[in-house]
């Protein structure tokens, strides 16, 4: 299974990509995204007055000779920030002619590989009703195999509880970072609050909504006996073309709502149907959204 997640050809293509975040997040030196924080960088940022305790190595001695005042050169910091991938493993991810879970798992693997290539620290965090056991991969592309094995071993189960997950996440990961949520976001409760919660704590959100074709446009007609995959609740109803239109409108409205939540918090939103190949999804919607460059 680990070998089948992503083929070698795609992995070679993924090496061109980089996970990109917009917020200036604090972190150790060695990242690849600039930030507004000054530090031990290469790019000049500004001058400021010297204060006691500053590193003398950063003093601009040429300016001191000319002006006889101590100025300190400040450089732009490129911090290493944690990238955390929240992968939905609830029962609803198992529905669809093409299982959303398989698709999401491949997507997570691809993002993990992209991060590992740029020496980012990637945390794979599965969730459903709560947070599952996480896997942290860092140190380069040769650590991808373990990450792939971890993803292959995941099983679907439980109902989605975004609020609980957000609370656990904040308490478990106090350091701010990039949070890539890969889910269908089909929680019966509204997921706006928990996402806002995460954003308010300083995390940058990339919301990746994965849906099956049946989730957006159900192909069935007539009398239907529907069962919720997560709760097991049954609903019997009649469904026709006009009802289908209403359904699709509601689904699209929900997707737009998620987009608004992401943009409002300086995050990004990507909606990917499972009938789009993984490669097209990565180099298409994800690149266009700026999540990867």
């Amino acid at each position, binding site marked *: 299974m680990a070998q089948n997640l992503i083929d070698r050809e795609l992995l070679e293509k993924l090496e061109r990509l980089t996970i990109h975040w917009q917020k200036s997040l604090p972190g150790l030196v060695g990242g690849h995204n600039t930030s507004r924080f000054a530090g031990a960088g290469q790019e000049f940022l500004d001058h400021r007055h010297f204060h006691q305790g500053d590193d003398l190595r950063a003093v601009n001695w040429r300016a001191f000779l000319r002006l006889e005042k101590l100025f300190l050169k400040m450089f732009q910091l490129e911090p290493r920030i944690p990238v955390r991938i929240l992968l939905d493993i609830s029962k*609803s*991810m198992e*529905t*669809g002619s093409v299982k*959303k879970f398989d698709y999401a798992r491949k997507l997570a693997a691809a993002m993990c590989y992209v991060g590992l290539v740029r020496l980012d620290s990637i945390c794979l965090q599965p969730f459903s009703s709560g947070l599952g056991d996480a896997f942290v991969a860092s140190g380069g592309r040769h650590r991808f195999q373990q990450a792939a094995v971890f993803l292959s071993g995941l099983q679907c189960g439980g109902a989605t509880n975004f609020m609980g997950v957000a609370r656990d996440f904040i308490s478990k990961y106090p350091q701010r970072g990039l949070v890539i949520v890969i889910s*269908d976001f*089909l*929680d*019966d409760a509204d997921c706006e609050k928990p996402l806002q919660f995460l954003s308010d704590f300083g995390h940058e959100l990339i919301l990746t909504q994965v849906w*099956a074709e*049946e*989730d957006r446009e*159900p*192909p*069935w*007609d*007539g*009398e*239907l*006996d*529907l*069962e*919720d*995959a*997560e709760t097991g*609740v049954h*609903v*019997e*109803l*009649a*469904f*026709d*073309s*006009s*009802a*289908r239109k*209403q*359904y699709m409108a*509601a*689904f699209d409205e*929900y997707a737009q709502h998620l987009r608004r939540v992401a943009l409002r918090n300086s995050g990004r939103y990507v909606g990917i149907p499972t009938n789009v190949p993984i490669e097209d999804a990565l180099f298409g919607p994800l690149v266009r959204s700026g999540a990867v460059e």
Partner: protein
Amino acid sequence: MGLAGAISAGVVALYLLDRSKRRQVVATLRFWTAADSRTEMKHRKRIQQPWSLLLQLLSLLFLIIALAGPRLGTDDKGRDHVMILDTSAWMGARSGRTTLMDEARSAARAYIKALPSRDRVMIVRADALATPVTAFESDRQILDEAIARSQPGASVLNLPQALEFAERAQKLQSQHAGEIVFAGAARVPEDEAGLATVPANLRVLQVNGALENVGLRKIGLRRSSTVADTWDIFVSLRNYGLKPRDVGLELQFGGAPAGSKAFSLKPGEEQQATFTYKTRAAGFLEARLNSRDAFPQDDRAVVELPSERPLRVLVYSNEPALLKPLLSMVGQVNAVFESPAKYDATAKADIVVLDRFAPAVKPAVSSIWIEPPAAGSPIPVKGTRNAVKLESWRTDTPLGAGLRTKDVLLQSAEIFAPAAGDIAVAESAEGPLVVARAGSPKIVVLGFHPVKSSMKYELATPLLIANTLRWIAPDVFRSREVQAGTVGTVTVPVEKGTDAATVRVVTGVDQGDAKPLPFTIEDNVLRFFSGAPGTVRVLTGSRELVYSLTLPDVGESLWKAPATVRKGIPRAMGNSVSTIDIWPWFAVLGAAGLLLDWLLFGRSRAYRLRAVGNVVGSIWRKAS
């Protein structure tokens, strides 16, 4: 029709599956609930998809009509025909490269092929007996197999019986009687040739049975009554054809020629010839006609001749000249005379005669004692009397059968004291003069000398000796007749008053599987029936008749169907269907309606229509 029905059933099943409530597992119900509320509101306002409803109702109506099986025209449920297939011996005759049986099979198949498919046919094989092979059957495969398995038998066709059977079968078992069809050569016995009373619904598919044939009818063999060790052979042959024929008959015994004769036979003529052949040995006698004809099965017959075993009689007598004439008159007896001094209790003989002599050790085989000494007699001697008058013979016993004397006075005779179970053959006023004791060995004691006494000139004396020898060794004296004939009913003349309990008719003796055959005795004629070739032995008292029923029984005449009887294969029968099934059309209409409804209003029509659109679009783009 079957295909249309199956397709319709499939479409209906698919339609019902399509229209049934479908269970689906979905990721969430949040969007469904909102969509359903609007649908329910619309349901309340008006009927959803009225055209679909109309199409469904019409389709179901058509299917219900199809289930009722409507037909155009008059109602016809098919008829029941009886096919009588001639399987008599004559059907094995060759006509060119094929046999008459092959032609009859072809005619029968052609007739069945010409019938409407719903008609049922019963196949009956007819030779001496009418045997049904199938019930009234519409499965053409079964009928064809039954016809293919029909082979010529060995007996003659009994046409009246077959027709009667067919009529009865139609009367009792058929729902709508069709035709009685006879397929065969119709070669029947002479007395049935003029059969004119036939069923009104009879149809004849007659094959050409008028082929040239000369065949053996019967061979009879009997021991000559005048010349010892000689067989009288009687051969009968017949010309069944329409042309005069010259044929030669050859007899062979054990491969050696035993006789021959040339015959010139007119059409329909039957001739007989007699031969004599001298032999004591057992063997096979073969009669062969040196002619080539359409029916070689009756050109050769083989019968087995039994050997003639002499009766060995050892006579111990000091005066052999007295008994020699008496014993030599019986042809089957081989008498050897010895003096009493050479007596040997274990000497090889069938019967020992002790003439006025009683040995110390009694003989191991059956014996005849003549005036035995009182001390050594096997039957106690009450005493010897002079001037004894022979009063009577016990003619009810086998030993005394046919004996009669009048006023015979014996100068001296021994009177015996028989034990219980002993048979007193001749009696005087003082007691029995001749006594027989059954058992093993058998013993007969004579109280007087048959030649030295006054019985010398009586006719009863040689008869008494002959009766005695026959009683002791009945197998040797049993008269044998051997006949080669045809299978079927055999009639045997028997003696007047023959008790059926004493008669045995058995078959399969040669094969070691003897089985009694049922028989009747009426007006001094014994009748039995043998349907299969084989050997039948008839034992009636002193007679043994061996019937080698190996010749096929061929009818003498060809039956000509009356002019009113329908003949040949009806060509238009298959097309003369009075009704037309229209239910398949209704079934197809119903299925097509449901299919259309499924395409237009089915639950996945959007995808189907889109797929159709894509295909059309791609074709259009390629073309442009």
